[in-house]
């Protein structure tokens, strides 16, 4: 009846006999009879594999796919076929956390490689095995800063970070005496002057994001010096794809680099799984949350990998741990590792610069030919924000013709109802971009 349950009637009889009870019910005798469930659960009875497939296929078809120009934290990049083939290797995806190093060298080594790749891209010295997503990584980075600057009680967050990151931080620290304050923005980027006005030694960390929620790149010249003069830590969140052509967090002088690696080998999948990355300098290694893999030797002197620095973690420190995280996004992190290893530095530069060129091509056509205005006059990587009159209607009309034309920022900022953030990746062909412009032309009037 149930293909995942191998027990036959004979097995059950023999097993009950060994146990010395008459029925399976007897094994549940410790459950007080008042609360024993006497009626079946109110969900349908089981169905066959084929019926499951039909049901799920039906559900998937109720979602509409289209030509995507959407970004704001989730991007439609090319994914080499080999990535998903690696993820389907059963000894990876059906494995547990690699506690038994001797039989987990595959996962451990892949994480060690992931940590190396993150360090290379961000320019930082150490990385962990990954976190849930780029948004929760921000909360963890702030916690690191608070544990480093124990007497400081303010966190300054730029007004241009992703609103969902901000929301996750607000939830995370809502019962904590720490004060989360916003740094004012100017022309849709973080204002260094405003930061100078408010920062002092009561600040534990400053969090900025580049490219920011509008897609604009932040020129962070002078930020690290100002932050460090005040003994605070600088946390920079970046779409890691942008690091293919833009300065890394280390280049800007960051103390902690964070973000989400979804653009590397992971589909958008309605927002998850992504992978949070976090990397920092050697000094803060022990303040880093989550799993870390290290290299060592086995008794025969062979190179081996193992979960290390575990004394920081919850299973040892319990309530004294600085983070409750006890897992990572291992398989999704592997996807990003495979992606980066497959495309290499040249491929990454190609993906990043093509995304850049195509976004600039679309920007040019929309602003010059259609007369649309940008929300601010700023540099950008692969997404930008335009003011589109009647944005809601325009997006709906575009969608009805099969194009997801961008993310309406009105959902995050009520006073920016007509701001639309448009992202372009290397996956969009010129033909598709031109079709976008033509459609937009028709929809706009």
């Amino acid at each position: 009846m149930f293909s995942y349950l191998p027990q036959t009637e004979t097995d059950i009889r023999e097993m009950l006999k060994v146990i010395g009870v008459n029925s399976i019910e007897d094994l549940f005798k410790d459950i007080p009879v008042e609360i024993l469930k006497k009626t079946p659960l109110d969900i349908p009875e089981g169905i066959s594999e084929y019926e499951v497939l039909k049901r799920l296929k039906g559900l998937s078809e109720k979602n509409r796919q289209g030509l995507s120009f959407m970004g704001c934290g989730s991007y439609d990049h090319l994914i080499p076929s080999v990535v998903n083939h690696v993820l389907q290797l059963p000894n990876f995806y059906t494995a547990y956390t690699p506690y038994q190093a001797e039989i987990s060298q595959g996962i451990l080594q892949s994480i060690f490689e992931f940590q190396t790749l993150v360090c290379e891209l961000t320019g930082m010295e150490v990385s962990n095995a990954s976190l849930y997503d780029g948004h929760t990584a921000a909360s963890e980075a702030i916690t690191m800063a608070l544990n480093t600057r124990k007497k400081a009680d303010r966190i300054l967050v730029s007004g241009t970070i992703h609103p969902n990151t901000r929301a996750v931080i607000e939830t995370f620290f809502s019962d904590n005496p720490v004060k989360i304050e916003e740094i004012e923005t100017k022309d849709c980027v973080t204002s260094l002057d405003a930061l100078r006005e408010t920062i002092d030694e009561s600040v534990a960390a400053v969090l900025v994001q580049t490219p920011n929620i509008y897609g604009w790149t932040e020129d962070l010249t002078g930020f690290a010096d100002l932050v460090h003069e005040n003994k605070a830590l600088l946390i920079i969140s970046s779409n890691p794809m942008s690091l293919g052509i833009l300065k890394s967090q280390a280049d800007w002088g960051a103390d902690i680099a964070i973000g989400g690696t979804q653009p590397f080998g992971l589909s958008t999948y309605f927002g998850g799984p992504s992978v949070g990355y976090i990397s920092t300098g050697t000094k803060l290694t022990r303040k880093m949350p989550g799993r870390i893999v290290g290299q060592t030797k086995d008794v025969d002197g062979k190179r081996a990998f193992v979960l290390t620095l575990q004394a920081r973690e919850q299973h040892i420190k319990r309530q004294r741990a600085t983070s409750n995280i006890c897992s990572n996004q291992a398989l999704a992190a592997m996807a990003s590792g495979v992606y980066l290893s497959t495309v290499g530095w040249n491929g990454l530069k190609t993906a990043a610069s093509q995304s850049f060129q195509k976004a600039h091509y679309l920007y040019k056509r929309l602003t010059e030919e259609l007369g649309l205005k940008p929300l601010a006059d700023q540099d950008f990587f692969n997404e930008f924000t335009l003011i589109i009159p009647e944005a809601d209607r325009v997006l709906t009309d575009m969608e009805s013709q099969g194009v997801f034309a961008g993310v309406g920022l009105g959902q995050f900022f009520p006073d920016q109802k007509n701001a639309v953030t448009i992202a372009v990746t290397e996956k969009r062909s010129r033909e598709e971009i031109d079709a976008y412009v033509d459609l937009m032309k028709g929809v706009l009037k």
Partner: protein
Amino acid sequence: MNIPGDLKYTEGHEWVRVEGNVAYVGISDHAQHELGDIVYVELPEIDTEIDAKEEATNIESVKAAAPVYSPVSGKIVEVNEDLEDSSELINSDAYGSYIFAVEMSDKSELDSLMDADAYKEFLEKE
């Protein structure tokens, strides 16, 4: 178990050696034995003001982590930098390896600490 007679002890297994107004703090031989191979000692920041019984720092073995509390109030004036690279010194010589030193703001706090005999008795009961 090695319990030198010239030191004071806490229930958290720290020892204190007093030199003038400064209290040198380490962990007892019993504590290092319980922890096993010590692999890391986090050194507190010099000039930090600290209260008695406040967590000053952490030491780690492979499978355990233990807080080290300051037995007295005051200001941290010295840390044992040798431990940064050679944390195993605590295993080999627990009483010769202080972790940090506190310039005491209230010497009377020393009175509430155990002497060697009391600590020995405490260990037997524990």
